[in-house]
């Protein structure tokens, strides 16, 4: 039982009792010595820069979420853009470019063309404006006749095996492509370069731009039945001609002023059904 005369003790009194919690007098010299040592260390050595990084961002701490979200969005956008542009225009490997000598290919193409292909053009230019236009039409016809083969070279199909097959069939039709085939199919690096769609464009002066992405084709859809294959072979044998024949035919067409529609009308008269051959008159 406490005597009634004693004073009341409030929470403030109890808390102020903590003022009496003080270190002894001998504590302070040691405190000063340690502080001086730390002060000298602070004077001599500067803090590492990475320790100061959190201090730089103290001001933007309240905007942490918006800044973080904006940063993530920006990084995602830039990376996606970089990835898509990289996919569209894949750089050609220098080693690949040097390993491929395109000059034989170009000379092979030039050799496969009919004699006087280049010289005739200049000669005709001298003789007159009208005949020059006709010869340019002949040149266009020649280029058109080579276009399917070039298309198969510059990426007509996605798989290397089917490309090789198409090249082989093209080679059967054209001696020019036969020579091209020999120089192109052998090294695998060339196949890679062809798939990128830029090598031939650079070598032959075609437009140097990235080829659009081709849709994938189911291999089963590419298979043809034996009857279709024999029919196609027959039609090919009937329709296709060698480049020299094509040039003769074109020159003949120019000479006789046969329109292109009429020419192809003649071709369409031939047809194959089953194992038989049709001819329309």
């Amino acid at each position, binding site marked *: 039982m*406490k*005597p009634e005369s*004693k*004073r*009341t*003790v*409030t*929470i*403030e*009194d*109890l*808390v*102020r*009792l*903590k*003022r*009496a*919690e*003080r*270190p*002894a007098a001998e*504590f*302070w010299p040691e*405190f*000063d010595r*340690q*502080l001086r040592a*730390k*002060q000298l260390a*602070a*004077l001599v050595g500067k803090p590492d820069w990475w320790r100061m990084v959190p201090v730089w961002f103290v001001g933007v701490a309240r905007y942490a979420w918006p800044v973080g979200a904006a940063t993530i969005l920006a990084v995602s956008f830039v990376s996606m853009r970089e990835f898509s542009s990289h996919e569209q225009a894949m750089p050609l490997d220098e080693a690949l470019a040097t390993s491929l000598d395109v000059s034989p290919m170009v000379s092979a193409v030039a050799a496969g063309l009919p004699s006087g292909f280049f010289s005739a053009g200049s000669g005709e230019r001298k003789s007159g404006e009208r005949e020059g236009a006709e010869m340019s039409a002949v040149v266009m016809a020649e280029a058109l006749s080579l276009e399917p083969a070039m298309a198969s070279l510059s990426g007509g199909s996605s798989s290397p095996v089917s490309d090789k097959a198409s090249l082989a069939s093209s080679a059967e039709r054209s001696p020019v492509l036969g020579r091209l085939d020999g120089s192109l199919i052998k090294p695998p690096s060339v196949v890679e370069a062809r798939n990128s769609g830029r090598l031939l464009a650079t070598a032959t002066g075609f437009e140097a731009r990235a080829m659009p992405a081709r849709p994938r084709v189911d291999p089963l859809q590419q298979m043809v039945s034996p009857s279709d294959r024999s029919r196609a072979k027959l039609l090919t044998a009937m329709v296709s001609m060698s480049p020299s024949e094509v040039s003769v035919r074109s020159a003949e067409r120019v000479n006789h002023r046969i329109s292109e529609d009429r020419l192809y009308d003649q071709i369409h008269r031939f047809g194959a059904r089953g194992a038989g051959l049709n001819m329309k008159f």
Partner: protein
Amino acid sequence: MEAGADLEIVRRVQAGDVAAFDRIVEKYRERVFGIVYHMTSNREDAADLAQEAFIKAFQSIHRFGGQASFFTWLYRIAVNTTSSHLRKSRLRSFFSLEQIDLDAPLSREVVEALTDKTDGERDAYVRELQEKLNDAMQKLSIPHRTVVTLFEIEGLSHQEIADVMACSIGTVRSRLHYAKQLLQAELQPYLRR
């Protein structure tokens, strides 16, 4: 007048008189140590944090422009350093208490009012009361503990506390009221009405 003297010393330090900083340390070391100690209830941590606060003040004294009083600026550094330490070491805090000086007038009066035991029993009682008191303080959040420390123990005004803690006077009063309620609930057995 005191603020003017502080500013004079600060200007000398800013001008390159490094030794003048010793006068600042000598003048404020006990108060800075007291603030840190009452917030941490650990004398070793308090010594380290007080020294760290003085080092930070020394390193950034060229940024002190004299708009506020120097001790407010110094106390803010000490409070922020201690708060940062407490947040980092929240799970591994333990007491390391200083001896209560029973010769101080207030402490003797309070202790005599609380107990009429003999000297040996009274020392044990005071020790128990000290632990309960520090335990109750550590149960407060850091802002509430800071307000109680600055107002009840260090004797700063509401305005000065608001300057140190960078908050309004209303916030200081509110925190003080709430902290006292919590302490009263914790220390109910030791109160005498």
